[in-house]
């Protein structure tokens, strides 16, 4: 089960979050997730500018490619943000197990 944001805020690991080593780990995690989203965004923008007719094609789900891709980017951003919270929590737990950077 995923921890709620409140549980994350209250966890002892959250307080070690200001440590530079942990910040660096979180930064790396963030950049990976950023790269994933950037790739999806670049493909979307490229299709909008260079293949609008492909964007108008129907999909088996009903709505066309443009609508589904657009919704995908919006919900994808929310999901990646949640995933990032979870990964930061895991980073913090591992960091605490390793002795909190001492």
């Amino acid at each position: 089960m995923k921890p709620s944001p409140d549980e994350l805020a209250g966890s002892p690991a959250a307080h070690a979050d200001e440590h530079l080593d942990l910040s660096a780990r979180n930064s790396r995690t963030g950049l990976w997730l950023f790269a994933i989203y950037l790739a999806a965004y670049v493909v979307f923008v490229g299709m909008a500018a260079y293949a609008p007719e492909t964007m108008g094609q129907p999909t088996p789900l009903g709505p066309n490619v443009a609508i589904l891709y657009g919704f995908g980017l919006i919900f994808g951003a929310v999901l990646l943000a949640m995933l990032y919270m979870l990964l930061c929590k895991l980073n913090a737990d591992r960091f605490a197990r390793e002795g909190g950077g001492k």
Partner: protein
Amino acid sequence: MIYSPSPLAIGVFAFFVLVVLGISFYLGAKAKSASGYYAAHGQIPWFVNGIAFAGDYLSAASFLGICGMIAFYGYDGFLYSIGFLAGWIVALFVVAEPLKRMGKFTFADALDSKFHSKGIKLSAAISTLVVSIFYLIPQMVGAGALIKPLLGLESYQGVILVGVIVIVIVVTAGMVSTTWVQFIKGALLVLFCTILTGMILMRGLNVDEAFGQHDKRMRESPEDRTLLNGTCPRENLLNDPGYEVLPPTGDWATDRGKAYLRIRERKTGVLSIWKGGDSGHFGGLFTRVQYKSRGNDGAAMVNGRRQGIGADETDLQPVGYVWDISGQKSTGPLNPFMFIMELQSASLAVPRSEKFKDQDNVETTVFFNRYVKGNELLTPGASPTFAAIRSDLYSTAGTTKVFNWKVFFSRLDILSLMLALFGGTASLPHILIRYYTVKDQASARKSTMVGIAAIGFFYVLTLFLGLGAMTSGVLDPTDSNMAAPLLARSFGELPFAVISAIAFTTVLGTVSGLILAASGAVAHDLLTSFLKMELTDHEKVRAGKIAAVVVGAIAIVLGILFKNFNVSFLVGWAFNVAASANLPALVMLLFWKGTTKQGITAGIFAGLFSSLAWVLASGEAYKNIYGLDPTTALVPFSQPAIVTLPLGFVVLIVASLLTQPKALEQKETK
């Protein structure tokens, strides 16, 4: 269109504004120190801050502008929604936490935390001021547009009203009250838009009855000239002795003007305008269209009569209809997916307009319907700005292939806009200062996540609100910004009053955040850090308040001057300027150790001034600011980011490389 104010709308509006002011005064009493004024003591709970992010971000442009763009142009408006949200990914994954770690009150603090350079303070403060003011203009214009139907005031009066209320809010309390106002407004906006979307889905799609009957009558009797959208063969219009055909003069003699016929009825003197060619839903017939111009006495004229609600007067008819849904009259309630699917296969009449200047300089705006299949509107390229992307890059003239520069630049324009939206969010000063209102990096991260969830959900709603407005026969053909409030009015006066009041508080909240960011830049970065003025804590707050009044006054003046601009378009420009000026400095400072203070200063100035210059030299500025022919503009497309953002990076890197030896010398002497 003429709007008559309703007492209910005024009552609800007054209630909202008074509650907002009440909160400001109450919380203002609690924030006396500089850290309280600018950063709410760093003690705002992360969830509240997250919703306040949404409140800050979902400005008049997001709400009014995007709904309007979707209602008029379909998917091209939704591109803005997607770009605006995607920008948060940059904020969350790249800049949020490092910025929180480095800064104190302002964006300049964060950039300067490593170098303590006067140059960085000056450039960051100027950039903050310029971007904030640029972003303020559309908010003020939106306020003016909104106040007109709500209270029956002129738009300049609306701008002054917003300016004064916001200055009072900012001067009384600073960041604490601004945050709570944004929290309340953000939550209300998402809640009421959800309710409105529910109402749209419950209503489903309906063929407009009046329009359907009218369509039928036109087909049976195409000679009926008294009705708007009436149709007639060209020969009959030209040869009727009861009518006089005006010769094409001025813009009417150009290629696009030749698609129209202007006919004056001899008996009444009333002029009607007919459009042929591509509006050809009615075959090769000419269609009677709506138009607006000025009479000899300067009074507004609509369809040849004085505009008004009196006996001899007339007004523009609302537009935006469904005229066929696979032969059904109504779909009944639909789920969100079915709503999109039914719309894709429906046939719609969407509003379009064109402006013509006659030889005597009298300007006439013609409003006509474009008859399209829904799927065409739910695909990129339905708006005039991006229409060229649907054409081929090469056209054939005889046997030779010709490279089509218009298509090429149109594609660059769309790429540039999406780049600006992606990079602009994380570079907006009023968004950046919100990272200083929470206590630590973890809270910064969590509040960003809450913000992304609220904003993402809202942008999904904007699609349905825009499409709902497009198909409800309520659009004002002269003003796309009014789409959302008019959609609400189609459900009754109360939803209209509530949505308008929320939209107005949206403007209030965003404008106060922006003025606060700008006043922080002046009082903290320019006076204290750059000019080294010795200010006590109390004086610092007072300086900020004086700056807030000045910036607010500037915003009022600009809001009145720019009132004819499209709100979303102006926001797009603000994002271009913000991304070009601030993003290279933020990113390089975080990820390149070779960055120098001279590099940052040069990068900020290069991005800021090049994007500003580009914007002012673009076709849109030629058309809307200087009244010149947009085809003679100095730059080939209107969104600068694809050129000026890389330029900011290049200047920063080159300047840093050129100033490296100093750093090496310092190392050696150590």
